[in-house]
């Protein structure tokens, strides 16, 4: 009997050991996989840096970012992407301006107004909007928005910053809605019964409890929407006209992703044109990083009231 119990004990110990080994292996595997993804990012950054730095032997960084004039293949190449930088910012901020009120409104409606059944019906449809390919959006923009501007508002050409912003607003709407909605639902679950017990009306609760508390969630959706908007290529390229001009609301413009997508195919390898396109990609990445860092600090500063 004592022998049996000892061997049983041993067997159990062996088993525990095997689990420990498997755990260790799994840990290493996870580490390895996550390291690969981090390394990927590092390599991408290094590659873009390497390809773009050659541009700055030709033009100074300052001239590249703050000068106008894009003639990369003429005899004396002019490389200044200020109009593109401004257009990129203009289009995405305007799009955000259009999409944010709509998005916050819809998420309040979704989280506080509709019952569970309808919510479960509407939410997936909105999420589905995020899955529509951007070329399809671009095509719709070309056929509906651009044509509307030309036919009804008699623009000489419907391709404009405004058209791109409207289209982009529709595209980033699902991201804004789902981010805001998520945080609002959390808040609602936490405080609903308290609020009801106090006899506060629903609209009072939304105005004075949910909206202020969801600040961080809304900010997160702003960052997400802005990043998405600045990186959007195909749809914007199809409706903005791609002219390297300073952006005007009803005028044509060109965004950085549009510039890269349009010209990368034609740029011959290792030409100044090719490197300049990489450099503009670098600038775009830097802009996105700055915006993300900025919002991170704003979020930190925003105080102690949080939804968690």
């Amino acid at each position, binding site marked *: 009997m004592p022998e049996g119990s000892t061997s049983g004990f041993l067997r159990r110990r062996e088993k525990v050991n095997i689990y420990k080994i498997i755990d260790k292996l799994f840990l290493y595997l996870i580490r390895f996989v996550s390291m690969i993804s981090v390394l990927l990012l590092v390599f991408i950054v290094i590659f873009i840096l390497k390809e773009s730095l050659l541009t700055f032997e030709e033009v100074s960084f300052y001239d590249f970012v703050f000068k106008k004039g894009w003639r990369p293949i003429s005899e004396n190449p002019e490389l200044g992407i200020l109009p593109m930088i401004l257009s990129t910012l203009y289009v995405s901020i305007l799009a955000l301006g259009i999409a944010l009120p709509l998005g916050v409104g819809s998420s309040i409606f979704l989280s506080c107004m509709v019952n569970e059944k309808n919510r479960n019906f509407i939410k997936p449809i909105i999420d589905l909007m995020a899955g529509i390919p951007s070329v399809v959006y671009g095509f719709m923009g070309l056929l509906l928005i651009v044509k509307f501007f*030309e036919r009804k508002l008699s623009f000489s050409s419907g391709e404009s910053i405004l058209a791109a912003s409207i289209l982009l607003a529709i595209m980033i709407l699902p991201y804004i809605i789902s981010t805001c909605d998520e945080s609002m639902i959390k808040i609602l679950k936490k405080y609903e019964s308290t609020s009801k017990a106090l006899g506060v009306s629903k609209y009072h609760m939304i105005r004075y409890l949910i909206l202020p508390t969801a600040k961080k969630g809304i900010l997160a959706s702003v960052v997400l929407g802005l990043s998405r908007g600045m990186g959007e290529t195909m749809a914007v390229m199809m409706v903005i006209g791609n002219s*390297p001009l300073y952006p005007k609301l009803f005028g044509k413009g060109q965004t950085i992703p549009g510039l890269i*997508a349009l*010209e990368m195919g*034609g740029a*011959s390898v290792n030409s100044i044109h090719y490197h300049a396109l990489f450099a503009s990609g670098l600038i775009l990445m830097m802009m996105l990083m700055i915006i993300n860092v900025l919002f991170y600090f704003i979020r930190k500063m925003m105080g102690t009231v949080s939804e968690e």
Partner: protein
Amino acid sequence: MKRLSMIFLMMILIVSLAVGCSNSEPTKAEAKEPVGKIVFKGSSTLAPVITQITKDFKEKYKTWDQVNENFANEDIEIFITGGGSGAGVKSVIDGSANVGMVSRPVTEEEQKTIEGYKEYKLGTDALTISVNPENKIYEVKDTLTTEELKKIFSGEYKYWDELDAKLAHEEIVLITRDIGGGAHKVFEEKIMGDSKVSENVIQAPSMGALVTKIIENKNAIGYASYGVVNQNEGKIMPLKVDGVEPTAENIKNGSYIISRPLLVITNKDVTESEQVLLDQIVSEEGLKVVEELGFVPGK
């Protein structure tokens, strides 16, 4: 239990990954020379022509051993991707495609970087200066001179009535291809010379998009490919340049000046099967397809 199944899942994943990797290598050694897939890359103008020719080729033979006994019994796999003439040259230099499609002259510099450079001319395409049929310009003015074109495309003329008082006071909408592209280079060389194309232009990402824009906007003017114009006859109006109409004959004898060659290019690594395909492209049948799609065939 959950953890166990998780580990199990990971194992399956790893094993399947390993298997997946080993699968990508050829599994059985064929006695005959395997062909593999052939990749074409480059000009979006030329892509439909090559697509049509290779489609006919595929339908005729189906597998490679039907083409020639020396080839392995493999399905004919041909991939055609766009990206522009520049991408065509690039892909031949770095070997990402077997054959490059180029619709502009290949510069000497580029020819030097390609080892064993060889080009096959399929025909000629012209860039026609085209407008929307609703634009009455072809009733008022029969022909545009190079000088007028320069003024239009450099942005000196902003409204149509500046070109001719009988035309409406409406803004001229300029449409070009991307400035790095083959078409734009040809246009700049043949028409613009030293003057610069205005920045207030709509840059279309493909020849198809350019023509669609002209069809849809009544104030638009752009350089549409002769072939694409023929494919959209009646919906778009090509104009004469310096009194020369863009016809097959005028393009061929060179009197219509804004023309460009349609080329496929290769480097030194041409396999036998690729050579067969290239011969097919420049054969009578191939050139017939070039003509059917509206271009001017000829070597």
